[in-house]
């Protein structure tokens, strides 16, 4: 391999990927950050305004709402996905006859286009014609029906978190399952002979051995939240009156619907910075694994 490693060969093999990636991803990030310091309406030339956009963020009520909604989605999705994903993986790890079929079915939501996912859940969550409220009324629990979306409360953020949970549960459980399968059976058997119960096994064997998997799951869930756009636009379009907006949808709306590209990019930059912190964690874990 050594004598094939000439500079010319390096150039041929690496330049296409590096060029496309640098141009479209890396430079784009810097361009976005540059625009976040400007005022640009889509026509003419952008005007440098310094930190003005960022100062405006602090006093923008809708930005604060978007930030808090994103926070709610992050926390709820993280807790539910890590805990229930882990439990489901343990359930799928049991030697049950139907587990193959069930795993395949539970995995489906991650494959479906997010744009369709939004529509599907619209007909589950809508306060008047959605499934949940009608079901509750049907079984006589109508008092528990709520305005899951489209009302002046922050339930929509929880609804979006739940949809995100639904979409990712099978995926996260499968990742946990792969991790659990890598723990050798002998360790469990040894523990089983000693009469250790399931819960103790989990706390003292499974969870400590899945440390890396858990880190990866957390990073995937967190960075995934910053990729959610279509589900929200289809479900509520950020409404009513921007109350169900997330950082991503608000940035999209401000940029492409209102045409305040500079301000929109400052929201995108904040989102990117939060996500970047988690990305670095991820790279760190991947690199440790490679060695």
């Amino acid at each position, binding site marked *: *391999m050594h*004598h*094939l*490693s000439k500079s010319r060969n*390096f150039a*041929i*093999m*690496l330049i*296409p*990927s*590096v060029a496309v*990636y640098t141009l*479209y*991803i890396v430079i*784009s*990030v810097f361009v*976005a950050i540059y625009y976040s310091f400007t005022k640009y309406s889509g026509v003419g030339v952008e005007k440098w305004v310094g930190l003005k956009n960022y100062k405006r963020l602090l006093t923008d009520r809708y930005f604060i709402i978007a930030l808090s909604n994103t926070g709610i989605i992050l926390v709820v999705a993280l807790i539910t996905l890590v805990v229930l994903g882990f439990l489901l993986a343990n*359930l799928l790890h049991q030697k*049950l006859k*139907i587990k193959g079929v*069930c795993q395949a079915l*539970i*995995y*489906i*939501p991650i*494959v*479906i*286009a*997010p*744009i*369709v996912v939004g*529509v*599907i859940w619209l*007909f589950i969550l809508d306060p008047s*014609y959605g*499934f949940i409220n*009608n079901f509750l009324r049907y079984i006589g629990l109508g008092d528990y029906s709520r305005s899951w979306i489209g009302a002046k409360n922050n339930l929509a953020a929880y609804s979006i978190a739940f949809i995100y949970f639904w979409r990712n549960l*099978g995926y996260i459980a499968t*990742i946990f399952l*792969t991790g659990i399968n890598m723990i050798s059976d002998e360790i469990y058997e040894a523990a089983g002979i000693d009469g250790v119960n399931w819960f103790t096994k989990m706390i003292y064997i499974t969870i400590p051995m899945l440390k890396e998997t858990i880190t*990866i*799951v957390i*990073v*995937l869930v967190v960075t995934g939240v910053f990729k959610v*756009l*279509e589900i929200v*636009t289809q479900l509520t379009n950020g409404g009513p009156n921007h109350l169900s907006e997330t950082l991503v949808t608000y940035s999209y709306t401000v940029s*492409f619907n209102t045409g305040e590209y500079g301000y*929109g*990019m400052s929201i*995108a930059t904040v*989102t*990117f910075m939060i*996500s*970047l912190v988690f*990305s670095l964690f991820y*790279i760190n*874990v*991947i690199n440790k694994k*490679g060695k």
Partner: protein
Amino acid sequence: MLLIKRVNKEGIKGIMRGKRKKAILTIVLILVTLVMIFPLLWVVILSFKTSAQIFSEPFILPKRFDLTNYIKVFKVMNLSILYKNTAIIGFFSVTLSIIITFMSSFSLSRMVFKHKKLKDYLYNYFLLGLTIPPMILLFPVYRLTVSMHLFGTYLSLILPYTAMNIAFNTLLFVGFFNDFPGEVEEAAIIDGCGLRRLCTTVVAPMAKPIISTVLIFNVLYIWNEYPFASVLISNTEKYTIPMGSAFFKGMFSMDYGGLIASSVIIMVPQLIFYGIFQRYIVGGMTAGAVKG
């Protein structure tokens, strides 16, 4: 004798308890599965009801399979154009991204770098792309596309889709090559095989399984991609499948039957695709996340 009896009794009890535990776990698993796939079944049921029924009596099952919604959607929605556009963009983008990331990953895994650190830096440089929120890229890529006079062409989407897949492909390809012994390649090199022939006739055939996984993933990404398409395509003639779906949300905003039927029409081919390639999809996604 008494002792043996007791052991037997314990054993049977143990088996009984094991069986009961299994039955309970099976029921729990079935319930979870039903809850998970219920939303999909629900929209399929709704799609056979008229818009008025969906709104006025959402909870009553359709009395007969009314196909009006589907007929309407097929009339309004030009599915052949949506699929044609997605197929053209998908074909060129996936081919391009697989070829270039195969090459770069092979050299990242196998070739001898003069500066060893540079190799790690490059690998991490690509991996960072995995976690970048696409939102921050939309406007810059739009500007870039306009400045290259590509706006509204197929290339306007082919290139960003290629770029977006580079990170994921690198993760999978490099992971595969690192796990794969290099002896066959060394033997081929000693036989005087050049780099191009080495890649096309020796390495690529061996990497078939990982290439299939990467291929399926890239196809799925493009099939589902909406944010870039919504910014870079304005002509309905060039709409991709997700764009068509969003467009019909706007059109059918008061026509729930049409909206649901169009969603089912988008969803069903994806379910078939998943059914066929399930092994690759589940395997590839977890390998990408877990193995590194």
